[in-house]
């Protein structure tokens, strides 16, 4: 997987409800190489913050040379708070594209599930499935509350059902609840979101005999597979260290749910 360091220029940025930001960047080299489900390492400008922030590609356009990142500001004085202040014309350093991304099984009916800040990467996947007519798809999005960022865009791509923790929109509960309530069916699940949601989806897929691919999250340092910070436990020996630790940044972030301990 080829990757490159690139100084990106901010094309525009807007807030998508409270604490969620939608950042469009000019980064032609990365855009050219990108695949849905991959991420970029975003380097803070603040000199005392050393570690890159891994942010998934919510979209990219190789022709336009642009990337789209949708991210949550996690708190005060954080790197993401710094990113939220970027304005058109500002620059920000990236390394990417990183990770494996989603590989869609052609012809197998897909259920795309996003939960919380796992919603953004599913958008590019949904768009590509539709554009390349890879398979049928149903989209299931789990939100915290009424702030259903990106939902309108998902609805333009395919049938979309929704859940929210507080019941403000769609089914009250999690994505699984929305799947059940709406009788969503399919052959494969592609998912990104909090661990409990991924665990529930794996169990659901197991019960139904479906395959399930999940995108994982872990603290990172190098972002490229060298430092072994970001491992998740795997069911079989990993290819790197002969133990049972797969690197989320390099072996993932997307794994077959049966490959890893959730």
């Amino acid at each position, binding site marked *: 997987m*080829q*990757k*490159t*360091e690139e100084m990106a220029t901010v094309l525009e940025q807007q807030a998508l409800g409270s604490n969620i930001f939608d950042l469009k960047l000019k980064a032609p080299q990365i855009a050219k190489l990108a695949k849905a489900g991959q991420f970029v390492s975003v*380097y803070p400008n603040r*000199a*005392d*913050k*050393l*570690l*890159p922030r891994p942010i998934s590609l919510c979209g990219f356009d190789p022709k336009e040379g642009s990337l789209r990142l949708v991210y949550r500001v996690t*708190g005060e004085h954080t790197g993401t708070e710094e990113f939220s202040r970027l304005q058109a014309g500002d620059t920000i350093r990236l*390394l990417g594209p990183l990770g494996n991304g989603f590989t869609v099984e052609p012809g197998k009916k897909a259920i795309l599930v996003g939960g919380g800040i796992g919603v953004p990467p599913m958008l590019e996947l949904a768009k590509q499935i539709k554009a390349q007519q890879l398979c049928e798809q149903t989209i299931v999005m789990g939100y915290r509350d009424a702030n259903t960022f990106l939902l309108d865009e998902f609805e333009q791509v395919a049938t979309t059902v929704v859940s929210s923790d507080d019941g403000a929109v769609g089914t009250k509960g999690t994505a699984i609840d929305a799947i059940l309530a709406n009788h969503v069916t399919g052959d494969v699940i592609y998912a990104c979101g909090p661990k409990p949601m991924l665990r529930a989806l794996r169990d659901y897929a197991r019960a139904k005999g479906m395959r399930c691919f999940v995108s994982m999250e*872990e*603290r*990172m*340092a*190098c*972002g*490229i*597979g*060298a*430092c*072994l*910070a*970001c*491992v*998740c436990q795997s069911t079989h020996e990993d290819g*790197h*260290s*002969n*133990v*049972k*630790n797969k690197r989320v940044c*390099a072996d993932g972030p997307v794994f077959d749910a049966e490959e890893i301990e959730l």
Partner: protein
Amino acid sequence: MSEFNINTAVDFCGIPMKNPVTVASGTFGSGMEYSDLVDLNVLGAVTTKGVANHPWAGNPTPRVAETKSGMLNAIGLQNPGIDTFIERDLAFLKQYDTRVIVNVCGHSEEEYVDVVERLADTDVDLLEINISCPNVKEGGIAFGQDPKQAMAITKAVKTKAKQPIIMKLSPNVTDIAEMARACEAGGADAVSLINTLTGMKIDIHRRTFALANKTGGMSGPAVHPIAVRMVYQVAQAVNIPIIGMGGIASTEDAIEMILAGATMVSVGTANFFDPTITQKIVAGIEDYMRKYQIADIRDLIGAVR
């Protein structure tokens, strides 16, 4: 300017290096992952992630946390074991025109010696013995905080080693010069320092440790002044050469370390925020030498006293 000829090559324990720049163990894998970003041929040497006689699984996650101008890690020396290392990583590295320094870890004297023996007949240039990892319970740090044990392990390793031995020192000690002298007395060909400083971060919102291991090793620019001080103290105390490391993130930092007494320098944490920093430092050292008309880098080693 360009007519002024400079020499950046150094001799390290009898091994000629095209320049004094290497990477700090554990921050660069075996170079493979960085090889499409950095031209490994540019580096004086590649120092590999610690390798043991069998695979180690390391610590639970989270394994890293960010601190002000630094980071904590508690990887716990996850590694594939010496067999895979030789087959895969060493074979990979030998494709490049750069020296190979293999960092060795173990839980006991026997384990260290085992790895050293396995590497004896390979094409490895130097061995760096990590007696200073604060993130594993047995071995590692115990050897690195007691001069007697450090001397004993140095001797044991030297008996079997065919390559020059670099003992890697922990900064978590009262007297770093004493530790270096103990390694020298045990027969070490060189010392490298500093490994990480033991630190801790607490997440005040979740009211829990930021690392699963509670403590971790601090590295990055924050620790640079401590590293420079220790390299200086060790340079005054022993006659064997030093690989200086700890927070090197720019040409200035590397030169500072050399002026303090290091023959070679390793770049660690800086690779994480600037993946091509090693190349920049190699070039930057040349610029510095031209600017100040220093013909031979060896004239800078320990030049500030």
